[in-house]
């Protein structure tokens, strides 16, 4: 009995194996014939269309006969209205390039773990949002992304290619190779603080132009608004940079930090010579700013337990619990809307240096990369060309469906359709994670205050400054251990100093520098300076 059963077992196994092999074969045989039969019509249609779109007759038609589904990842959460937008997007893409898009999200909370995981298993992923703040350089230098050439972009993304400053490709390259389709317009995104103008006027405080003027405003709030904390900060990154803004405030010496490792250079120094936090003239600036933070912290203007608070200052501001919120010029838009509905008179303080300048955002602050080994890079690039640079696509993915999520009023400004509020809008602008489309095509919003429109204008006119290292990407791959060790030292010793929650500012700075040196500060400094010198050299020789 047992013997026969064993044999039968072998037979079944064989049968299964055979069946699967045959299936494999037949699939391979079938594919070309199937696509062959359905190819003729769509190819032609697309060919003529792309020819007319680019008006370059010499380009050979791109073969789009096989329908493909392009799976990719964005950062954040899917807004409620996404399925509708995707349906509409796919019907257009299907017609134009015979492809559909499948969008998944990497949530903020598991970003640091899930994002690298997606890159290891690129089997099914065709595209992914990448950015310097998502460790674009590190991932690229480890071979996570497919190399893109300028020819590829020129061929498959003609509209995009025409609209972008070619400098961007150089800036987004790692070791001389491009792994990202950077957003074509550098965003006017600079850090801003928002305060409550209505409360400021109520307590008779003079207009506030810079962060260091905030003390009387904070004092008035503390005294008169028992349900508010003047600055309810959180462990969120944007809330932890207040001291650096106070440092930049101090005048003609804007500084730029190297990843918060206790190193900085002056933005207008063309050689970008690094300075440690305990070297003059940096030290006195830092101590003064940290001193202000400590005064505010001790006076109770800043909440004590910021490190355990998970509600960021901008949300607390929106809920009326904080009198200041930290944001950037883009992320603040949603809050301008909701603030207006709540009757706040929101005033903006651009976080610029004493001369009114700030570092221009990097080209790599947002873009699309293709994981190594992805199967349809051509079609992905074609789809992205449309999404990024064709206005109808761009509006669709960024603002949603016209008439349902937005309307353009008689002045051409963007408005919510009647009956829709910012709370009930199923597809709020910017919320879907398409942070790489061409911003220059966007209309102004009807809800923007004159101050905000003026600010956007000022930014473009005179606030952005291209520092000596714009476009440079540091690579600390060989110093992983030092970077990791320094990261924990920063969290434990530098962070409380910058937030004012230390007993003595001088002493805290010394402790931090001491611990940092043990963790490998000098090695990182040498390596950083070496890379900076090399970069400055090549830049000046160009």
């Amino acid at each position, binding site marked *: 009995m047992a013997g026969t059963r064993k044999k039968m077992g072998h037979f079944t196994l064989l049968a299964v194996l055979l069946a699967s092999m045959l299936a494999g074969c037949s699939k391979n045989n079938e594919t070309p014939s199937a696509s062959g039969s359905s190819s003729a019509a769509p190819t032609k249609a697309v060919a003529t269309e792309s020819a007319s779109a680019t008006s370059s007759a010499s380009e050979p038609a791109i073969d789009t006969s096989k329908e493909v589904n392009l799976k990719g990842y964005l950062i954040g959460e899917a807004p409620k209205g996404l399925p509708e937008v995707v349906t509409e997007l796919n019907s257009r893409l299907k017609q134009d390039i015979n492809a559909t898009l499948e969008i998944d999200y990497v949530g903020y909370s598991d970003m640091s773990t899930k994002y690298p995981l997606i*890159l290891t298993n690129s089997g099914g992923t065709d595209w992914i949002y990448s950015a310097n703040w998502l460790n674009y350089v590190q991932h690229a230098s480890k071979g996570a992304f497919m190399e893109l050439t300028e020819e590829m972009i020129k061929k498959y993304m003609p509209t995009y290619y025409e609209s972008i400053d070619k400098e961007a490709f150089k800036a987004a390259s790692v070791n001389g190779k491009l792994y990202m389709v950077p957003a074509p317009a550098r965003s006017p995104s600079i850090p801003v603080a928002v305060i409550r103008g209505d409360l400021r006027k109520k307590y008779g405080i003079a207009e506030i132009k810079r962060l260091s003027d905030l003390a009387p405003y904070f004092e008035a709030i503390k005294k008169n608004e028992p349900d508010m904390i003047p600055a309810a900060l959180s462990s969120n990154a944007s809330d932890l940079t207040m001291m650096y803004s106070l440092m930049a405030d101090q005048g003609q010496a804007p500084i730029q930090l190297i990843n918060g490792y206790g190193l900085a250079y002056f933005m207008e120094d063309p050689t970008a010579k690094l300075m440690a936090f305990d070297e003059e003239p940096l030290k006195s600036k830092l101590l003064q700013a940290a001193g202000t933070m400590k005064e505010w912290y001790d006076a*109770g203007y800043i909440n004590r337990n910021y490190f355990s608070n998970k509600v960021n200052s901008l949300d607390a501001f929106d809920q009326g619990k904080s009198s200041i919120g930290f944001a950037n010029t883009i992320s603040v838009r949603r809050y301008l809307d909701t603030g207006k509905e709540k009757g706040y008179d929101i005033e903006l303080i651009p976080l610029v240096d004493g001369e009114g300048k700030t570092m221009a955002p990097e080209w790599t602050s947002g873009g699309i990369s293709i994981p190594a080994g992805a199967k349809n890079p051509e079609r992905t690039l074609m789809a992205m060309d449309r999404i990024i640079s064709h206005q109808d696509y761009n509006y669709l993915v960024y603002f949603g469906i016209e008439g349902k999520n937005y309307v353009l009023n008689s002045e051409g400004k963007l408005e919510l359709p009647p009956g829709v509020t910012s709370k009930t809008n199923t597809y709020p602008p910017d919320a879907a994670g398409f942070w790489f489309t061409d911003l220059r095509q966007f209309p102004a919003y009807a809800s923007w205050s004159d101050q905000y429109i003026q600010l956007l204008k000022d930014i473009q006119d005179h606030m952005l400054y291209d520092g000596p290292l714009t476009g440079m990407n540091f690579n600390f791959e060989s110093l992983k251990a030092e970077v990791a060790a320094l990261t924990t030292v920063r969290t434990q010793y530098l962070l409380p100093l910058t937030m004012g929650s230390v007993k003595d500012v001088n002493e805290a700075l010394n402790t931090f520098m001491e611990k940092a040196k043990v963790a490998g500060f000098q090695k990182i400094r040498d390596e950083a300076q070496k890379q900076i010198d090399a970069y400055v050299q090549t830049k000046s020789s160009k």
Partner: protein
Amino acid sequence: MDELKTLYDIRKHKVLYMMFLPIAIYFLVFSYFPMAGIIIAFKDYNYAGGIWGSAWSGWDNFAYFFKSGKAWLVTRNTIGYNVVFLACYTFFSVAVAIFIAEMRSKWFKKTAQSFMLLPYFVSWVIVAAFVYNLFNYEFGVVNTVIGWFGGEPIDIYGSPRYWYFLLPIFYVWKWVGFGSILYLAAIMGIDQECYEAAVIDGATVFKKIYYITIPLLMPTMIILVLLGLGRVLRGEFDMFYQLIGNNSMLMDATDIVDTLVFRSLVGTPDFGLASAAGFYQSVLCFVIILAVNGAVKLYNKEYSLF
């Protein structure tokens, strides 16, 4: 000869072995095969090479852990907290199980058990949110109540001494419901005749507990404690990370291996460095469990795990 015997045994009890097969496959796939991935700890990982193709890097991946100057501190903290947790958890679970077993009112028994089990299903993220609302300096419930009585507010998030007690309390609060079920099951398995005989001899409730229930629970307790010790270097990451986070004032008192590793690597995604820490924990756990098991074996062979 032995092999033949095994083969014969398999043939004879093949139905039993078949029943065992799924669970064997489960452990092979999810626990034994992934062990090979441990070599990442000794490699300079890159995406093109994957696990097998990347270059070897010797002990480099371990360096950051010791460079931080906190390796000893976090190891000590991890073991310290886990031992305290394990002791509290075992004590309270056994106590609760005994109380529940001795209760007469069925309705009260069930209700009490349900309420104790409830925290087991609440995630630390949510616990952290209400702990923050309880203890934060400005608007926390605790400080508001202190304010009503005219007292000075206390800065709980700024003083490590509170957390030496709070952390075990939260741990027990979360796990005691689950633990008591395990011990309750063991109590239910005790032969009722022992108790009947004791009652005839005039034993009180406390004497029954002391002379019958606790001695008979001993083997269960020892096995569970041994299993717990096997995880003694795996800190309760969720709890520490959510409740305390990057709070620098508490850091020296509450930093455990897992939080240190997370903090170091959150900005530098590197599989090699992370696996190195995992490897360090596993090896220490392995040594500890062998040592403790050996000690138990010396005391009473029956109680040891293997």
